[in-house]
């Protein structure tokens, strides 16, 4: 059940445009950057950021896909095995500044897994983290470098980032926990 809308389409666009400018400002351009999105919506957001940076700066930043399933710390705690869908990063990350992109930052455990997965693929010069929503409740010392919106939530709620490519619409909503 949808409890509240957090971002509409226009606000989501503006947040991505602002993050793109912040990435360029902080890194002095886009020359040594690569994007790596976390499956599934992080990849889509990374592609959108790359498109914006190409429009602003003229630089085409490559976008890779990271599947963190093999690095999760809760394998064996869940009864259902998560499906592995594969990592696809067809460019070297050694010496690059990697912008890791995810839709929602919550406990930080996915990002911990992503950092381990990335470092197994090479030694980047730097890793920065961009998220559309930071909803708090961190369980690890991880903080984002770029945030679309800070959103105080209760642990029991869930935040759904809905994107045209997957869900037919662009918006972010808070969903109330199921009754019972």
């Amino acid at each position, binding site marked *: 059940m949808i409890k509240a809308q957090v971002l509409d389409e226009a606000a989501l666009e503006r947040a991505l445009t602002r993050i793109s400018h912040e990435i360029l400002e902080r890194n002095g351009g886009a020359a040594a950057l690569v994007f790596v999105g976390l499956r599934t919506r992080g990849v889509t957001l990374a592609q959108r950021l790359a498109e914006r940076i190409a429009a602003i700066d003229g630089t085409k930043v490559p976008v890779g896909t990271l599947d963190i399933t*093999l690095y999760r710390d809760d*394998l064996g705690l869940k*009864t259902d*095995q998560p499906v592995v*869908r594969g990592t696809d990063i067809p460019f070297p990350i050694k010496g690059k500044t990697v912008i890791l992109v995810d839709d929602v930052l919550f406990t930080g455990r996915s990002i911990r897994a992503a950092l381990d997965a990335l470092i*197994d693929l090479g030694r980047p010069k730097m890793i920065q983290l961009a998220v559309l929503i930071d909803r708090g409740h961190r369980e690890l010392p991880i903080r984002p470098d770029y945030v679309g919106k800070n959103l105080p939530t209760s642990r029991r709620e869930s935040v759904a980032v809905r994107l045209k490519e997957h869900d037919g619409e662009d918006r972010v909503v808070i969903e109330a926990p199921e009754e019972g």
Partner: protein
Amino acid sequence: MAWKRKDLLTIQELDPAEITLVIDTAASLREIGGREIKKVPTLRGKTIVNLFYEPSTRTRTSFEIAGKWLSADVINFAASTSSIGKGETLLDTARNIEAMSPDVVVVRHSSAGAAEMLARHLRCGVVNAGDGAHEHPTQALLDLLTIRERKGHLDGLQVAIVGDIAHSRVARSNIHGMRKLGMTVTVAGPPTLIPPHVQEFGVKVSHRLEDAIRDVDVIMMLRLQQERMTAGLIPSLREYSRYWGLTLDRLRASARADVLIMHPGPVNRGVELSPEVADGPYSVILEQTGNGVAVRMAVLFLLAGTRVTQEAA
């Protein structure tokens, strides 16, 4: 779709969605083999025991590499170098191994049903790496992955399986898997090597190589074991080769230009396959071996990564 089984014993017992899950998982894991550092931490702290009562290079090495790339500890027991040679029964050996708390036991044995028997008695996961002439499920899964990679799909494809069908666990597992995924299968070989009533598996039978391989998308050649000759099932290797050996001339005369040639190995060069075919452009034999590691990673991940445990019977 989630994996629910403690063991992987046969293809016969899997449903199409389970087969597809293993193949999809394997396709995703294959990327690890192309990395500079071929290791992910997924099965850290898990123990996998390879229990092989029959000689094997490919399958045992493949399971060992798969386990190691996933960071599991892999221990090999081979019949020739262990207490198995001292007369201990399969079940006693397995119970003693279980007392060392492995997470998965991979077993190959000359008796059909050996893996299933162990699975009933052991709490850990059991993978059948070949039981007699019964099944060899990971071989069929890697064959299906190889075909899907090359052809883009499986449904509707036509396959000829040629050779010693009667004694082949590879053929049996593949027939089950291919039928479940909507493929058409023709088995071909001399009548003494075709099991009676094989049509009940939903396959066609051919007794002429040229007819069997015409218009098919995949030709799977089976290894002819020398013992079949001493048992009187074929007159001589030369005669077998003359009628059932796949040569380049035969291939060009009867088969499609985009046919795939597969073989589970080890190849008897000059018997079932001529060297020009085994090494030629149609052959995907080495891709099969490469995909074998990916499939075994997928199986170990699905079995050892989950908490599905079952009380021993």
